[in-house]
């Protein structure tokens, strides 16, 4: 028997992601899904952000990791609320894992929720976790052709954050080239350059967070 169907393979994940989004929307929480390759500095960016903005926003973190709780401990040391998801070898977070993590997280008064995905530029991109926006994090110790090699992430992201710019004098990373590739498929992509180590560029990132958070609140009331 022939069965004609047209169904999105990811529909179960996307339905759950919509539920997660609705749940976070009700509490007016801006949710950002942080995606990068391993070692680009996701946890470092969170540590700095959580410390520096602790007086301004209440923030929480869902930490995705293959095995350890090292990152969750680093994040919790800043005083932010954090919950760990161990994927036990799984290469990405999905909306069901995030939904279960939310059950364990005290969301009262939270303004911004960060989801730190598993370090991987391919798999996490396909799985909507219920976030408002994906952030693509890249570092200058990687190839400047990453946006070209992983176009889906950069085409779906709201912002690209280029980390470790303090190392630019020592590496061959071509910032203009990376920017151009990233903007090829995404004209609206906001591109920020910073160093979690030296602190350079962090103000612009914090401003971006404030603006995005305000835009979301405004969008809701309007």
């Amino acid at each position, binding site marked *: 028997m*022939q069965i004609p169907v047209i169904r999105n393979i990811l*529909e179960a994940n996307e339905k759950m992601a919509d539920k997660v989004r609705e749940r976070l929307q009700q509490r007016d929480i801006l949710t950002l899904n942080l995606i990068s390759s391993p070692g680009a500095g996701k946890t470092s960016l969170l540590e700095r952000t959580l410390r520096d903005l602790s007086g301004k926003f209440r923030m929480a973190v869902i930490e995705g990791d293959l095995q350890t709780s090292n990152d969750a401990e680093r994040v919790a040391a800043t005083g932010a609320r954090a919950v760990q998801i161990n994927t036990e070898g799984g290469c990405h977070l999905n909306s069901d894992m995030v939904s279960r993590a939310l059950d364990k997280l005290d969301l009262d008064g939270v303004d911004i929720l960060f989801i730190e995905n598993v370090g991987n530029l391919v798999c996490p991109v*396909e*799985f909507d976790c219920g976030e408002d926006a994906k952030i693509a994090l890249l570092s200058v110790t990687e190839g400047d052709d990453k946006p070209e090699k992983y176009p889906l992430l950069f085409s779906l992201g709201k912002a690209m954050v280029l980390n470790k710019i303090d190392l630019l004098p020592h590496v061959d990373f071509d910032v203009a080239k990376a920017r151009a590739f990233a903007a090829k*498929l995404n*004209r609206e992509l906001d591109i920020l350059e910073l160093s979690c180590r030296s602190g350079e560029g962090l103000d612009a990132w914090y401003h971006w967070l404030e603006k995005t958070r305000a835009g979301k609140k405004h969008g809701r009331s309007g």
Partner: protein
Amino acid sequence: MHEMTLVQSLLDMAEEELVRRDCKRLLLARVEYGALVGVMPEALHCCFEILTRGTVHENARLELVRLPLRLRCPFCGVSFGEEVQDVLNIPCPVCGEFFGHIVEQGKEMILSRLEAS
């Protein structure tokens, strides 16, 4: 290896469709996937075989169709794809605009046909 997750959700969907039509056994599933989607066909086939082995669906066939990338220029509106070389890296072949090309085809992952008995 997100292919395992994808094949599992594909099989869950196929199961739903089979039950709805009083079918027992899956014979074929066709999946169309866009060129930007990061899946490896070999891995999908391998996961499909592993997940159907020892079940009533053992020996079912997975047919994969790759959908080529198509972009549309936001300025002149022309649509271009794999008939031009290196579609991801070139400016619009008509007006030369480099930025903001819209992905018309390339992000999909669709279950598009089932055969069952």
